């Protein structure tokens, strides 16, 4: 009996140790950096702006995780691949030829809309097919089974698109109309980054209204609440789940185009890491909640951009930017350990626990 008690203490002790050591590193590192102050105020603003731009993309991808998780309680590991498949296809079939013919620079708006449409449609198609073939038959299976299928789907899609379009990095054309800089708070903002931020806000608000106000949105929420009851209410559960996947994938397809606008190159592997990060963002904000995904994405983006110089520079860590992902994953781990409901999530997390 004495031993049992010790075990419980051991668990709490370890958790406390982790908490304390992380806080010590963060505080000590920040103090050291700030007292040394290698960066100007403008640098810090820059870091934050970069973080917001990156975080917006995380937010858009995170929506897909959150929606699917809300409905199926399943981590759709392949979601990053939906993001990749859309923009890869749009780049190869649309953006490349449009740019080569000069149409892209003559009619940037029409071209971009076309690219966006192709990207979103491809993502949606891939998502719906994946759901139909790989996930739907497993809805009643033990919970690990769909997760494993999703991991399989992720790799399958990645390497299918690698096989289709090749393993090289594909350049995404520079859109002349978006290559300028705009003065902002004493620094300069890239137009493409501004587009990303604005587009993200529009899409998130639109999606939120869709889910909250429309009939389909209500069906989605009903299915998220209780599938059996929803079915009794005459809601076609399978169809609603498909729509949920499609919505998430559409957001991911759009995020893909924004990604390509900012970074101007695409690659078959580009979905994997952003996918993981977006999942982190979704968890951070509180998985299952749309505003949570947005806040989590921004938070993670800023953290990744500001974190390494703030926490690690002062500790004299060599090449500290290498450890950016360590910071992101550490944050994921800490959130899941200490606040699994995320920053604003409450309801769903408890349902899950």
């Amino acid at each position, binding site marked *: *009996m004495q031993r*049992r008690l010790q075990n*419980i203490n051991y668990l709490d002790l370890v958790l406390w140790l982790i908490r304390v050591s992380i806080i010590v590193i963060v505080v000590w590192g920040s103090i050291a950096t700030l007292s040394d102050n290698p960066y100007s105020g403008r640098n810090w603003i820059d870091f934050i702006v970069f973080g917001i731009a990156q975080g917006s993309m995380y937010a858009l991808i995170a929506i897909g995780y959150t929606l699917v998780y809300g409905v199926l309680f399943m981590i759709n590991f392949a979601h990053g691949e939906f993001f990749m498949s859309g923009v890869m296809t749009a780049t190869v079939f649309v953006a490349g030829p449009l740019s080569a013919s000069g149409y892209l620079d003559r009619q940037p708006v029409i071209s971009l809309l076309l690219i966006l449409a192709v990207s979103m449609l491809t993502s949606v198609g891939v998502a719906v097919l994946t759901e139909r073939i790989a996930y739907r038959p497993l809805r009643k299976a033990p919970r690990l089974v769909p997760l494993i299928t999703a991991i399989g789907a992720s790799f399958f899609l990645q390497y299918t698109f690698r096989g289709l379009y090749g393993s090289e990095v594909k350049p995404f054309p520079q859109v002349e109309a978006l290559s300028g800089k705009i003065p902002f708070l004493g620094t300069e903002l890239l137009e493409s980054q501004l587009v990303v931020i604005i587009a993200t806000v529009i899409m998130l608000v639109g999606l939120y209204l869709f889910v909250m106000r429309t009939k389909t949105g209500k069906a989605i929420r009903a299915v998220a609440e209780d599938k059996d009851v929803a079915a009794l209410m005459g809601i076609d559960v399978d169809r609603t789940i498909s729509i949920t996947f499609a919505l998430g994938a559409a957001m991911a397809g759009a995020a893909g185009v924004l990604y390509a606008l900012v970074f101007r190159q695409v690659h078959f592997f580009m979905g994997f890491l952003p996918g993981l990060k977006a999942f982190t963002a979704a968890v951070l904000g509180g998985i299952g909640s749309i505003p949570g995904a947005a806040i989590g994405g921004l938070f993670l983006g800023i953290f990744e951009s500001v974190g390494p110089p703030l926490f690690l520079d002062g500790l004299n860590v060599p090449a500290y930017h290498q450890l950016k992902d360590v910071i992101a994953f550490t944050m994921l781990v800490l959130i899941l350990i200490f606040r699994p409901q995320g920053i604003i999530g409450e309801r769903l997390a408890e*349902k899950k626990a």
Partner: protein
Amino acid sequence: MNILTAKNVTKRFGGLVAVSGLNIDLAQGSIVSIIGPNGAGKTTFFNCVTGFYKVDEGEIIFDGNLLNHKSTDLITRMGISRTYQNIRLFANMTAIENILVGEHPHLKTFWAEAIFRTPRFLKEEKDAEAEARRLLRYVGLAGLGDSLARNLPYGAQRRLEIARALASRPKLLLLDEPTAGMNPNESAEMMRFIKNLRDDLGITILLIEHDMRVVMGISEHIHVLDFGQKIAEGTPKEIQRNPRVIEAYLGRGAASGLEAEGVSATV
């Protein structure tokens, strides 16, 4: 002597107070029922006793020990064991394996002994298996030891669940609607069985039950809960005459269907 004393136990979920200031005393060797309409807090109270929920206020004392901050497994080791309203067997394990898991608190060998098959380990395993077969016979499932739990008929599953709970050699057994879904014959059978448990093994029994025939037939003492509060307690006769109980039941319709506590616990 009281084996279990609950003093002023309160459990809240967010704004909802599931159990509020509940006092229950359980005499050693008695059979006591908790009744009440849906959502009255009966299963929540069970969950508090077994440590699955942490009590917000008040204390639960078992055999002279405070249970409040003890973990579920520890409480089981101290001698409280339970069954579930919606049977929760290890569905993909055989009946014998289920009981063997139940015997867990009494197996003493260190895990590494299993690797070397020490004589002590072999003997313990043999004894455990014999004990499991004995319990299986005791609950009337002899010969079904190797079938999967989920393949057993409903009534057999109920009895297997009790056998599994008995395997930990409890001093107090909590039964959550042991006769739910049974026909009158089966219920009567179960009543006899529960009585025997107490008479043969001296186990104190606390049960949640909706079937009034069962409740009145075997309980020595009854507590009535409504909205998380105790509205009455006494012998079956007293309860039958209590106006508040009658109002609670008849005023709001008889108890049937799904119990709401289970839902509130997971939302």
